[in-house]
C-alpha cells in the first residue's frame, strides 16, 4: 500500500489544501468517522460473525469456538486469538503468500485492543484445569480496502464476539464432550472500541479513508473500554506526535469511541 506516483503526490496536495481550510476530501468533519454498517450472523455456521462496512472498507469476521489445550503455565485460562488477513480480492496491490509486517502489525494491534480491554473473560473458559480449555478464535478477512483496517477489523471482531454463542463441553473420560443444547453467550466484560487517527501535516483526522491513509505522515490507534478508560494504543508511520497532539488524540478516542460503542450495542441487540 505504499506508493509515490505523481497522482499520489497530487492527491496528497489536494488533501492538505482542503485540511488547511478545515475540510476533508469526502466532506467529513475532521473528527468524524465514516458511516458504519454492521450485519451480524453473516456466517451462520460459525459460532458468531459480523460483516462490517466502514465507508467503502469491508471486513468479515467469523468466530470459531472449540476445545483446545491450554498454553503452558496458563492452565486456568481459556484462549482468545484474533487474526486479520487481507484477501487478494480486496485491492489490486494485495499479494498472496505469508503476511508482511503491515498485516502482522494490523492483526496484533486488533488482537491486543480486544485482549487488553479484558472483553472476553478467559477465566470462565476452562473445561478441565491444566488439561482442556475453550479457544475463541476471531478471524477477520478484509474483502474491500479503502483505508483504516485497524478500526474496521476491530469493530468486526467485537461485533462478531458480541453475537457469539459458545457450545458447552464437559470433561468425560479424559476428553472434552459436547453438551447438546446448552449454547450460551460468550462471557463479555466490556466493549472495546478502537479509534484510529491520522496526522497529515499538523492536522489530526479521525478514520482516514484510503486516499488519506496513503497521504498521512503518522497515525495513532487508541482503544477505549466501556468505562471510558484507555486500554491499548499503537503509534505508527514515519513522523512523530507532539505531547499536546497525543493528549488530544486520547480525548478524541474517548469521545468518538463512545458513539461507536452505541452502534456495537445496537448490533448486539439485533443479533439476539
Amino acid at each position, binding site marked *: 500500500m505504499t506508493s509515490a506516483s505523481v497522482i499520489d503526490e497530487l492527491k496528497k496536495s489536494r488533501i492538505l489544501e482542503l485540511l488547511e481550510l478545515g475540510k476533508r476530501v469526502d466532506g467529513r468533519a475532521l473528527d468524524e468517522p465514516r458511516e458504519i454498517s454492521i450485519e451480524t450472523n453473516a456466517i*451462520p455456521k*460459525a459460532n458468531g460473525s459480523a460483516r462490517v462496512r466502514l465507508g*467503502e472498507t*469491508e471486513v*468479515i469476521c467469523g*468466530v470459531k469456538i472449540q476445545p483446545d489445550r491450554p498454553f503452558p503455565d496458563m492452565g486456568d485460562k481459556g484462549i482468545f486469538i484474533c487474526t486479520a488477513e487481507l484477501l487478494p*480480492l480486496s485491492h*489490486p496491490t494485495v499479494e498472496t503468500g505469508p503476511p508482511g509486517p503491515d498485516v502482522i502489525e494490523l492483526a496484533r494491534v486488533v488482537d491486543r485492543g480486544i485482549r487488553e480491554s479484558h472483553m472476553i473473560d478467559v477465566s470462565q473458559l476452562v473445561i478441565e484445569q491444566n488439561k482442556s480449555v475453550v479457544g475463541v478464535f476471531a478471524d477477520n478477512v478484509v474483502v474491500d480496502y479503502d483505508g483504516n483496517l485497524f478500526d474496521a477489523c476491530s469493530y468486526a471482531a467485537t461485533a462478531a464476539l458480541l453475537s457469539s454463542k459458545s457450545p458447552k463441553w464437559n470433561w468425560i473420560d479424559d476428553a472434552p464432550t459436547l453438551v447438546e443444547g446448552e449454547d450460551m453467550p460468550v462471557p463479555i466484560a466490556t466493549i472495546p472500541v478502537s479509534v484510529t487517527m491520522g496526522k497529515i501535516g499538523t492536522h489530526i483526522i479521525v478514520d482516514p479513508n484510503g486516499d488519506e491513509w496513503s497521504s498521512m505522515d503518522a497515525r495513532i490507534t487508541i482503544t477505549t473500554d466501556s468505562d471510558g478508560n484507555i486500554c491499548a494504543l499503537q503509534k505508527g508511520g514515519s513522523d512523530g506526535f507532539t505531547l499536546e497532539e497525543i493528549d488530544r488524540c486520547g480525548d478524541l478516542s474517548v469521545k468518538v469511541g463512545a458513539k461507536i460503542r452505541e452502534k456495537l450495542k445496537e448490533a448486539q441487540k439485533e443479533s439476539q
Partner: protein
Amino acid sequence: MGGRDATMVLLDENGIRCDGRKVDEPRRIMIKAGGLKNADGSAYIEFGDNKILVGVFGPRDVHPKHMSNTDTGILRVRYHMEPFSVGERKNPAPSRREIEISKVIKEALEPAVMLDKFPRTAVDVFIEVLQADGGTRCAALTAASVALADAGIPMRDMVAAIAAGKVADTVILDVNNEEDQAGQADMPIGYMPNLEKITLLQLDGVLTPDEYKKCVQVGVDGCKIVYDLQKKALQEKYFGDGGD
C-alpha cells in the same frame, strides 16, 4: 465415500432426500454479479449453505516478467477457504486440497476464456469460501464464470457447475455435505452449455459403468439450470432485471 455412515437415512421411501429435496432437485442457488468495489469484476454465490465471493483483476501485467507468455494471456486462480468457513477452524496456510482445487478450477475456466485476446498479461481469479457446505468447487466455478464476465473478460461461453452423485443406490443431483460424507459417490461437473463441453469432472466413490453415464447426464442437465441463473444474475446487474 461408499456408505460411510449406515445409520443416516439419505433417501426415504418417497424418494425424498435428507434435506427434503427430490433426487433431481438442486439446492437453493442465489447468484449476484458485482458487489466488490476494488475488483475489476466480482460475483457472490449462495449455493445451499455455501457462501462464496469471487473477485477478478485484469488483464494486467505479470511480475516477474518471465512468467508471462508473449503468445497468450494467462489465467491464475486461487481457491481459498476462510478459517471460519468449515466445522473445525481451518489453519490459514494453504492446504494441498486448496492448491489442487485451484488448478482444477483454472483448467475448467481456460476453455471458456479467450486468452489469446490479451497476450503477455494475466487475469487473476480470487475465490474466497466464506462458508462451506458440500460442493464448494462447483459453486466457486459457477461464481468465477460470472465474475469473469462482470470484469468484461472476453469469453466463449460461461462454465456452469454442479455435482451429481449417488446415495442409497440412486443417482442424485447436487450432493450436499451430509450426502458427500455418508453417500456412495460425488461427481462434480463443470459444463459450457453453448459449446457443449465438460471442462471440470471429478469422481470420488464407486459407480457401475451405467451409473457413471447416468451421473454425467444428470450433472450436465443440472449445469443447464445453473447456467440460466448465471445469465439472470448478469442481466439483473446490467439491465436491472432478471431477464424476464
